[in-house]
């Protein structure tokens, strides 16, 4: 009985408070305690930038790139101070890249980095945009820039290592994957990629060690198991190669990898 009375009093007290909360707005901008026209205009711009960021990010969250693009374009036209100007360019670059306009995305990320040379996420996305555009030479230049900006960054080392490996620059790839492993020895993918460098350099003993490390971290790493099978073939350990291809075929979710592994197993 006493509890019921207490609950009723609480509801009476909370009712008006909840109604007041429902009618309030988030304090996005300071109330304009001024009659100065230029100050009022600046506050209006600030508020518009805030609202357009919210709308643009909401559109990007639902992959609605066409809706996001005009919001960020308007922010750029309003020319807000840093870091908002470079952030708007970065966000617009994502929408442009996701729409397939890699040239525009690249220019926007370059402009973001010009405004803020320490913007590492922009440097990272510039590498990815060049990769998506299929321009590996530009991607390498961007990756060198990113690595220079953030030498301890795992992402910088990984991206440049993969680009260098695909371009046949085994020395740079080896250095980057070794740096990546020293920063995070539990990252199996780095061991695998270092092993690919060593296989291409015909250093099969080192490749075997790296692949064993990758498989110790993730025993179901089918691509690493397959690579280990090829190393065994190269060094004449055919029984182990056969077992490796058999296990790779069982673990692989990639149909091509599975069929190639089965084919090689049956040839041994």
């Amino acid at each position, binding site marked *: 009985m006493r509890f019921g009375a207490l609950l009723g009093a609480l509801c009476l007290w909370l009712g008006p408070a909840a109604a007041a909360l429902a009618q309030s707005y988030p304090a996005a901008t300071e109330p304009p305690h001024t009659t100065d026209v230029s100050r009022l205009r600046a506050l209006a711009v600030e508020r518009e930038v805030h609202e357009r960021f919210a709308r643009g990010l909401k559109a990007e969250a639902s992959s609605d790139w066409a809706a996001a693009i005009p919001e960020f374009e308007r922010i750029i036209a309003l020319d807000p101070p840093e870091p908002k100007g470079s952030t708007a360019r970065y966000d617009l670059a994502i929408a442009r890249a996701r729409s397939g306009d890699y040239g525009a995305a690249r220019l926007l990320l370059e402009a973001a980095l010009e405004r803020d040379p320490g913007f590492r996420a922009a440097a*990272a996305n510039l590498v990815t945009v060049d990769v998506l555009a299929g321009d590996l030479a530009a991607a390498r230049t961007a990756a060198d820039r990113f690595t220079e900006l953030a030498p301890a960054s*795992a992402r910088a080392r990984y991206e440049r290592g993969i680009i260098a490996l695909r371009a046949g620059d085994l020395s740079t790839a080896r250095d980057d994957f070794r740096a990546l492993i020293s920063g995070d020895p539990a990252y199996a993918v780095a061991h695998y990629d270092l092993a690919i460098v060593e296989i291409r350099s015909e250093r099969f003993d080192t490749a075997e060690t790296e692949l064993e490390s990758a498989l110790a971290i*993730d025993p179901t790493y089918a691509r690493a198991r*397959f690579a280990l099978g*090829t190393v065994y073939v190269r060094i004449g350990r*055919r029984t182990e190669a056969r077992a490796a291809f058999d296990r790779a075929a069982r673990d692989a979710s990639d149909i091509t990898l599975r069929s190639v592994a089965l084919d090689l197993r049956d040839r041994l």
Partner: protein
Amino acid sequence: MRRLRIRWTVLLTLLGVIAAAGGVAVSAEEALDSFGHGELQPSSFADLLGPITEGGRTGWDCAPERAARAAAARAAELPADSR
């Protein structure tokens, strides 16, 4: 005469076995050269880092900046293509 014939038979059989083994070995090597390297490609590239909010870079404390500068791979939004 008969003993000599047996010796020759054993020798030719051995040569045949060695030749067959060599043939299998060459075919496995050839298979690797023909399509094995296609499966020894490097891992995939990393995807784009995500958007940043209006105030996200104040103090550089936003997820994409943290991923871009992380020294540990698991915090850097890198691929985990292990299959």
